[in-house]
């Protein structure tokens, strides 16, 4: 039972967060406090059985072969497979209708966490056991969440649109060929204005993910990807209340600051150490990737947009749940250095960029600090068994200073524990990322050689 719950939570939550590894320990200890969005949790739970995730994702080597791009990460995948239940997997039922593929999720072990390049976590295996012929082009709720989050990371205002150059840099990270990307753009940009609104972006993203999984591109935009259909099927207001919009007074938003406040209380020093090393790695990775991509494509796109795109929230390996990745909340509190709780995975997920939109919210959570404290400690109580009667005493919402301090202490202790776990996970992730960095460097060198060979022919 417990394992199933864990599995479910792992399924849901890590997917939400960038750093899946980080999330796992958090989830087990803070299940109850982590109630970000009740509806999302429910959603996850309802979907998890069908996804049949991650409890024990069996590896399926044959599936890897289908996705040639994953060669660089196959090692990581196999090693990480058992460690990190593919919460990621849940994320990518791309073409999965909810009911299908009972065996599917199991076959898609998500190893992708450390995918430097892709938020698309393309290594997902396509499930061709879709029961509906047009199912590949139907966006599931999970995918929708992910796409919307990515959109928000590029453009905070969901009703606005992403400019062509920004979208181009983002989609270029998917490592599809330029003709394919231009064709996808042609399909998805229905009004041909050179910018992508949210439905258009979701359609484009979905097409890219489908293409990465081996589906041929359609002749025309499928009806389920039409902007009108997408807007009707997935009403936006639901997402407006999501984490990212911390100005909202909705429940999730309240819970986020609560979590945030709790984290704020934790010793700042603990937090400060962790993210920095990984952050360095991430920025290096970003740069390496960017340069590799630029060279590979032989594009004369100026380096400026490329480097800027490196700041963009890059394809987190896992489609992050729009959840309050606690790390994100923390980052707000701790400001820039903290970011990388989340990005442990997605190296690129330019935490720096994420901080920018989140830099405003910190004032609110801080204001609410004292009020939700009680609630925060309440949330913590269930998770910390040791608190016992003491916690019961503190459960009463008296905003007295003494009670607050005891709650603070407990909060700090819990946070310290969590941080230590996170530290271990991050250190491991760091080593994996370093490995990937080396691989990418090698790729870059190979590409540079190729470029040199081609250069004489290109002299004009």
């Amino acid at each position: 039972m417990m394992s199933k719950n864990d599995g479910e939570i792992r399924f849901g939550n890590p997917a939400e967060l960038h750093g899946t590894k980080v999330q796992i320990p958090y989830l087990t200890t803070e299940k109850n406090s982590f109630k970000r969005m009740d509806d999302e949790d429910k959603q996850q739970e309802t979907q998890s059985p069908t996804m049949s995730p991650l409890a024990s994702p069996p590896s399926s080597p044959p599936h890897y072969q289908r996705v040639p791009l994953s060669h660089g990460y196959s090692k990581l995948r196999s090693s990480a497979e058992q460690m990190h239940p593919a919460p990621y997997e849940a994320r990518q039922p791309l073409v999965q209708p909810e009911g299908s593929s009972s065996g599917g999720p199991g076959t898609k072990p998500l190893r992708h966490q450390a995918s430097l390049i892709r938020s698309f976590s393309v290594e997902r295996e396509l499930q061709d056991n879709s029961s509906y012929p047009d199912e590949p082009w139907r966006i599931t709720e999970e995918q929708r969440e992910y796409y919307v989050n990515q959109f928000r990371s590029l453009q905070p205002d969901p009703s606005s649109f992403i400019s062509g150059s920004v979208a181009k840099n983002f989609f270029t990270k998917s490592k599809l060929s330029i003709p394919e990307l231009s064709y996808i753009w042609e399909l998805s940009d229905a009004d041909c204005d050179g910018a992508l609104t949210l439905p258009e972006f979701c359609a484009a993203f979905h097409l890219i993910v489908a293409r990465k999984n081996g589906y041929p591109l359609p002749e025309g935009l499928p009806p389920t990807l039409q902007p009108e259909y997408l807007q009707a099927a997935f009403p936006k207001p639901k997402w407006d209340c999501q984490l990212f919009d911390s100005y909202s007074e909705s429940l999730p938003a309240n819970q986020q600051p609560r979590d945030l406040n709790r984290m704020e209380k934790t010793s700042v020093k603990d937090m400060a150490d962790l993210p920095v090393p990984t952050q360095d790695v991430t920025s290096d990775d970003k740069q390496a990737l960017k340069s590799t991509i630029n060279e590979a494509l032989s594009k004369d796109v100026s380096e400026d947009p490329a480097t800027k795109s490196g700041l963009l929230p890059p394809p987190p390996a896992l489609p992050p749940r729009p959840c309050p990745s606690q790390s994100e909340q923390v980052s707000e509190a701790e400001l820039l250095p903290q970011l990388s709780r989340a990005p442990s995975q997605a190296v690129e997920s330019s935490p720096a960029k994420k901080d920018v939109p989140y830099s405003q919210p910190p004032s609110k959570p801080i204001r609410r600090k004292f009020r939700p404290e009680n609630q925060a400690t309440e949330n913590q109580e269930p998770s910390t068994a040791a608190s016992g009667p003491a916690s019961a005493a503190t459960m009463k919402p008296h905003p007295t200073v003494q009670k607050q301090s005891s709650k603070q202490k407990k909060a700090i202790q819990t946070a310290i524990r969590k941080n230590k776990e996170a530290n271990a996970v991050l250190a491991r992730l760091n080593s994996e990322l370093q490995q990937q960095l080396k691989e990418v460097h090698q790729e870059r060198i190979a590409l540079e050689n190729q470029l040199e060979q081609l250069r004489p022919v290109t002299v004009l």
Partner: protein
Amino acid sequence: MAVCIAVIAKENYPLYIRSTPTENELKFHYMVHTSLDVVDEKISAMGKALVDQRELYLGLLYPTEDYKVYGYVTNSKVKFVMVVDSSNTALRDNEIRSMFRKLHNSYTDVMCNPFYNPGDRIQSRWALLPVSASSPGGPYFLCPIQSRWALLLCPIQSRAFDNMVTSMMIQVC
């Protein structure tokens, strides 16, 4: 209906050429190439003072015994050249104008695609390379700036543009 449609870049190299497959494509390439001189002449004839008022549609560039060649220039000096059959007398000037306008709209849609570099060839399903095996050493070897399009630029695939041109070759639109 058009027999051959060509999009020429500002530097007078072809971005897109497509002719009806049954014909001798080399001949059309040559016709389009020679028409570029006429286009330049018409542009310069307008005078510098009138450059703002210059109309985009240039009209009949020159007639041959079999074909008529029409021209159209955008404000960014991208030229559209259309070759129509002379025997098709039903074609009127307005229809040609509307065809050019549609072509211009399709071209702007191609430009809006961020993956398209201005100056790249526009990929067509039917005519992959203007100077491909079908017309070896086509007329564009005469063009001094022809090398740019020859090899390496990554052409984008624009099926919408292609479909528009296909429809123009089938019927008057």
